[in-house]
C-alpha cells in the first residue's frame, strides 16, 4: 500500500494545533480577500508568503493553500452580488449568479455557490487521493534529463495558455530563468552577475519576484480601474435553505463539474479560470430540460462553482509532482514550498508524502466543514465585503509587500527588486508577456540548470542522454507537440 500510514499521519498533522487553526484562518482570509473585486487569492497569498517564515513549514504551506481555497469561493460572492468576479475562476458564475441575484434570489445563489464549492472541492479531494499511487509511479520514473525537459514543457504550456503570444510567454519565461542565474552557480560555484555586490552573492530571491508581479504590478493595474465597488445598498433577499436544496437536486452536474475542474486544474497553466468556463459550457450543452442559461439558471451556477473549487485540488498535481504550477496561485504555493525547503518532485511523494496528503485533507476539511459553515454564515453579511474600496487596499498591500520582502533576509536589494519587478511586471501584463511564465522561469531556472548538468555529468557531456530512454523521448515529442500547437494556433488566427 502506497500510503503506509502516511494518510493517518497526515490526518493527525492537519488536526493538530496550531495547524488546524492556520487552516481555518487561511480559509477565512481567503474568503474575505476573494470577495473584494480585483484582489483575489494570489495577492492574499503573496503578502502572506514572506510572513510565513515565522511558522513551521507544514503550517505555512497549509495556511497559504487554504487562502487559495477560500479565495476561490470568496470570488463568487462579488460575482453573484455585483456581476464583478472577485477572481478569474468565478467569471462564469456571473452568467447565472447575477441574474438570480437581480431576480430577488441573492441568498439562494450564495447558498448554491457555497454548497457547490464544497461538493466540488470534495470531489477533487477524492480524485486526488485515488490518483496518488498513479502519480507516485510516474514521478519516481523521472530522472534528471526528464526533469530538465519537463521544466521547458511547463514553460511552453504556460506560455501558450496564458494571455498573450507564445513567443512573448517564452521570452518572459527565459527572463525569469536569467533572473535565477544571479549569484553562485549551482555546479561550478562561479559568482555570476553580481556586479561585485556582496548582497547578490546569494542570488536574487524568488519572493521579491513573486511579490513584484503578483502584488505590486497588480496594485498598479488596479489603481487605474473603476467601478469595482458596489454602489448603494445591496438587498440580499431569498432563502439560503432553498439554495442548498436546489444544489442537492443535481448530483450529476456536481460530479461532472468536479471531475472537469480537477482534470483542467491539473493542466499546467490552465487552472480555475478555464475550468469554470469549460464546465459551464458543458452543462449548457448537455441540458435539454427547460434551460434558462444566462437568465438565472441554477445549474449554470452549480457547474461553475463546483468546477472552480475542484480545480484548486487539481492544480496541486503538477505543482507538487513536477514543480509546474497550474495557476498563478499555485505558482505562489510552489514558491512557498521552495522557501520552506520542500522541493517538488519524488520527495513529496515519498518521505514527505504525509505533507502532500495533509494538503489534500486540508482541501477536504475546508470543503466539507469550513466553506459550507463560514460560507453560509458570511452570505448574510456578504454585501459589506463587496463595498470595500480597492483604493483602501492598495497602500496596505504595497506596505505589507515592502516590509514583508525585507523580512526574508533583511537585504535591501530585495526591496529594490520587488519594486523593479513590480514595475516591469505591470508593463509585461500590459503588453501580453505572461507573468506566470516569468515566475515559473524563476522557479524552474535552477531546477533546469541543475538537472541539465547532472544529466551531462552522467553521460560524460553527451547530449544523447536526452534520447536514450523512452520517457525522455516521450517528453521531447510532447515538447515539440506543445510548441507546434502554439505556433499553429497563432498562424491559424491570421
Amino acid at each position: 500500500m502506497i500510503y503506509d500510514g502516511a494518510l493517518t499521519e497526515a490526518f493527525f498533522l492537519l488536526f493538530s494545533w496550531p495547524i488546524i487553526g492556520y487552516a481555518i484562518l487561511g480559509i477565512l482570509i481567503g474568503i474575505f480577500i476573494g470577495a473584494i473585486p480585483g484582489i483575489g487569492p494570489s495577492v492574499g497569498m503573496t503578502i502572506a508568503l514572506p510572513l510565513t517564515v515565522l511558522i513551521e513549514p507544514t503550517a505555512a504551506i497549509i495556511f497559504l493553500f487554504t487562502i487559495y481555497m477560500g479565495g476561490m469561493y470568496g470570488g463568487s460572492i462579488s460575482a453573484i452580488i455585483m456581476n464583478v468576479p472577485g477572481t478569474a475562476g468565478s467569471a462564469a458564475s456571473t452568467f447565472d449568479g447575477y441574474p438570480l441575484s437581480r431576480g430577488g434570489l441573492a441568498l439562494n445563489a450564495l447558498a448554491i455557490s457555497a454548497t457547490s464549492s464544497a461538493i466540488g472541492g470534495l470531489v477533487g479531494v477524492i480524485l486526488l487521493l485515488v490518483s496518488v499511487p498513479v502519480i507516485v509511479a510516474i514521478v519516481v520514473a523521472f530522472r534528471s534529463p526528464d526533469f530538465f525537459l519537463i521544466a521547458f514543457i511547463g514553460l511552453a504550456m504556460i506560455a501558450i495558455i496564458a494571455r498573450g503570444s507564445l513567443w512573448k510567454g517564452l521570452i518572459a519565461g527565459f527572463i525569469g530563468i536569467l533572473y535565477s542565474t544571479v549569484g553562485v552557480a549551482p555546479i561550478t560555484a562561479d559568482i555570476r552577475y553580481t556586479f561585485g555586490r556582496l548582497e547578490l552573492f546569494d542570488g536574487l530571491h524568488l519572493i521579491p519576484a513573486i511579490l513584484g508581479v503578483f502584488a505590486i504590478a497588480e496594485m498598479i493595474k488596479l489603481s487605474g480601474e473603476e467601478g469595482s465597488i458596489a454602489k448603494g445598498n445591496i438587498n440580499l433577499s431569498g432563502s439560503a435553505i432553498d439554495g442548498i436544496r436546489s444544489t442537492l437536486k443535481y448530483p450529476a452536474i456536481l460530479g461532472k463539474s468536479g471531475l472537469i475542474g480537477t482534470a483542467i486544474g491539473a493542466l499546467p497553466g490552465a487552472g480555475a479560470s478555464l475550468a469554470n468556463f469549460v464546465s459551464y459550457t458543458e452543462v449548457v450543452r448537455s441540458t435539454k430540460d427547460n434551460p434558462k442559461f444566462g437568465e438565472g439558471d441554477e445549474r449554470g451556477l452549480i457547474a461553475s462553482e463546483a468546477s472552480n473549487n475542484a480545480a484548486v485540488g487539481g492544480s496541486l498535481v503538477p505543482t507538487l509532482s513536477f514543480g509546474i504550477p497550474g495557476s498563478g496561485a499555485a505558482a505562489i504555493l510552489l514558491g512557498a514550498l521552495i522557501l520552506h525547503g520542500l522541493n517538488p518532485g519524488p520527495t513529496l511523494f515519498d518521505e514527505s508524502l504525509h505533507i502532500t496528503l495533509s494538503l489534500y485533507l486540508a482541501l477536504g476539511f475546508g470543503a466539507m466543514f469550513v466553506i459550507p459553515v463560514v460560507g453560509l454564515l458570511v452570505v448574510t453579511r456578504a454585501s459589506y465585503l463587496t463595498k470595500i474600496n480597492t483604493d483602501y487596499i492598495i497602500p496596505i498591500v504595497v506596505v505589507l509587500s515592502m516590509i514583508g520582502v525585507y523580512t526574508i533576509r533583511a537585504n535591501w536589494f530585495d526591496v529594490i527588486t520587488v519594486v523593479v519587478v513590480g514595475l516591469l511586471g505591470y508593463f509585461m501584463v500590459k503588453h501580453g508577456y505572461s507573468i506566470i511564465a516569468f515566475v515559473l522561469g524563476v522557479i524552474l531556472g535552477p531546477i533546469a540548470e541543475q538537472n541539465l548538468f547532472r544529466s551531462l555529468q552522467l553521460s560524460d557531456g553527451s547530449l544523447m542522454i536526452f534520447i536514450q530512454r523512452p520517457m525522455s523521448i516521450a517528453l521531447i515529442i510532447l515538447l515539440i507537440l506543445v510548441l507546434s500547437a502554439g505556433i499553429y494556433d497563432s498562424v491559424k488566427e491570421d
Partner: protein
Amino acid sequence: MDFHSLRKYESYSNYVIAFLFFAITLGWFYGSYDYSFRGAAFPRYISLIAALMCLTILLQNFLPSSVRNVVIGEESGFNLELESGETPDSEQQSKEGTESMKDRLFTASLIGGYLIGIYILGFMIATILYVIIHSLHNKISWKSTIIITLICTISVYAIGAVLTIDIWSSIYDGGIL
C-alpha cells in the same frame, strides 16, 4: 492626451519593453564570457535564444504576416482594445483611458517614491507619508486615511518588533543598508 496619442504611447511602450528585454538578454550573453564555460553555458544559451526572440519583436514590421502573428500574438493592453483605424465611441472613452493611465503612472511613481523614502527616512516615516499621499490623491476621507495609516504602521511596527527589523533607521543614522 487624445485617444490616438494614447495608442501611440501604448505602441511606444510596447517597443520600449521589447528593447529593454533585448538589452538585458544581450547583457547577460556578453556577461557570461566572464565566467567558466561550465558555469556560464546555461545563462549564455538561454540569453542568446531570448535575445534573438526579442529582436524579432523589435523587427516585427519587417516579418511576413503569419510569422508576425506568432511573434506578437493578440493585442493585450488593459483598456485600449480598438482595432487600428477604428475611432473611439466617444470623448468619454478617451478621457477615461487617459485618467486610468494617469492613475497607474501616479501609483507606480508613488511606489518608486516610497522605495526612495524608505532609504532616506526609514520604513516607519516613509510608510506614513506614502499612505497620506496615496489617500490625498485618491480623495479618501480623513477618517479612512487614519484607519489605513494605523493598519499600515501597526503592521510595520509589529513585523519589525517580532522579527527584530530596524524600521526607524534613516540615511541620517547609517540608513537601512
